């Protein structure tokens, strides 16, 4: 019986070592997303703790060689929906038609967007960018963070939000258009734009 017990403890140690190597390095990424979704650092930390305990309990179900980060995000999503979503404050709704009109007016006043790159990219403050992301409706905020900040593929995002890839594309497009107009407006109000 003793060899069996020792072998079992070896397995447990190996499982924990694998978990440490595969899952722990993504903690900051998950926290970054959790904070942007919950809007509260305590809620975000609690959410991460719950997510990691749950993922450790089910780590033997994780398919080695697949994207551990995407797997952790899926576990976090379920935990978030169950416990934290009701508490989170939803930002104001966005009038997308108004955004489109504003975007078209920016577009018609520029023959070339090249110099906008320098003016927006270099001058915007970190807080202004964070504020613009936080003001997005949750569906848009989720896809844009997962794609542009966390680098998940469309397939992984589609899996995360339980929607077809077409929905990921269209939400991303809209989210970026809303963000572009918001960032442009900040830059314009603060006098960052030469025009």
């Amino acid at each position, binding site marked *: 019986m003793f*060899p069996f017990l020792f072998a079992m403890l070896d397995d447990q140690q190996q499982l924990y070592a694998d978990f440490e190597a595969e899952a722990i390095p993504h903690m900051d990424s998950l926290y970054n997303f959790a*904070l942007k979704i919950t809007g509260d650092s305590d809620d975000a930390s609690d959410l*991460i703790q719950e997510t990691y305990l749950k993922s450790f309990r089910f780590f033997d179900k994780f398919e080695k060689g697949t994207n551990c980060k995407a797997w952790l995000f899926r576990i976090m999503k379920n935990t978030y*929906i169950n416990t934290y979503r009701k508490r989170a404050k939803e930002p104001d709704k966005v009038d997308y038609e108004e955004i489109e009109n504003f975007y078209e007016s920016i577009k018609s006043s520029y023959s070339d967007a090249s110099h906008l790159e320098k003016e927006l990219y270099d001058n915007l403050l970190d807080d202004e*960018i964070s504020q613009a992301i936080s003001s997005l409706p949750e569906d848009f905020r989720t896809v844009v963070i997962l794609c542009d900040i966390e680098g998940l*593929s469309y397939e992984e995002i589609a899996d995360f939000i339980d929607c077809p890839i077409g929905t990921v594309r269209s939400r991303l497009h809209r989210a970026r*258009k809303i963000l*572009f107009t918001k960032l442009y407006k900040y830059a314009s109000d603060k006098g960052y734009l030469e025009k």
Partner: protein
Amino acid sequence: MKNKKHEELLTAFIDNELKSQEELRAFEEALKEDPSLEFDLKAESLTKNILKNRSVRDKMPGKRKEGILRALAAERISTQKKFTFKENIYNRKFIGFSTAAVILIAIILLLFNRPPGVNIGINISKQTGENNIVVLAANNFEKYMAGDKSVQFVSNNPEEIKNYFRTNGVDYETYIPDFDNYSLVGAFVTDHKGVKLANHIYSSPDGKYIYIFQVHENYLQGDSIVRITNDLLNYLKLGNDYKTTQKEYITVLKHKDKKVFAMVSNLDAEKLPINFYK
């Protein structure tokens, strides 16, 4: 730019997610046809670039990170204490053979030495096969807990959930009980050989979950969509409940109003509110 197709192609192009040559050609054509797309391309690429490189990445506070690592270490110790007999013994070829032999001899001795008249209920408890209601319910619950399955509809309103089932192909009347100290999380519909079946979940603030899979008995009889042994169905129809424990979950089956309810939970057996049908 108002062409929705062009918009989506442009977004996928920026993210290097145009998977087919056809889509790539369609996007190149669109660029030729509409020069204003150049502006859209630059504006959206710039936005992505700002998000990717300029947005502040919040790091987990050191103390909280340490706390999580400590909690994981504690979890690891407690996991080591409760080993799962089946998974660990049978997966080892050499140990597995001798252990299995000892267990087999023990079972034979027990069977031949049991007192006369003891009913071991082997027919009722034989619920196996991937379409079996007990196995389906336990698998769904486990996938949900592992994050491989999630609710398709989030609501804590029983009427909204019933309506969700109705409008998403579930063709029988569903029952959504109310449990003290548990709130409804939401629902999902599963497809079994083209038949839509109702699943919903509750949670408590202390991390306990109750999952209910309900199937109309029309889908349990004859050439059934979901399987259940006749012995067990008859046993349930007499008003009995059937309980079984798999891994760390408990499953309870009930029959009421021509439906069988499979309730799975990570609660302790004695705390599971099984008398839910009012």
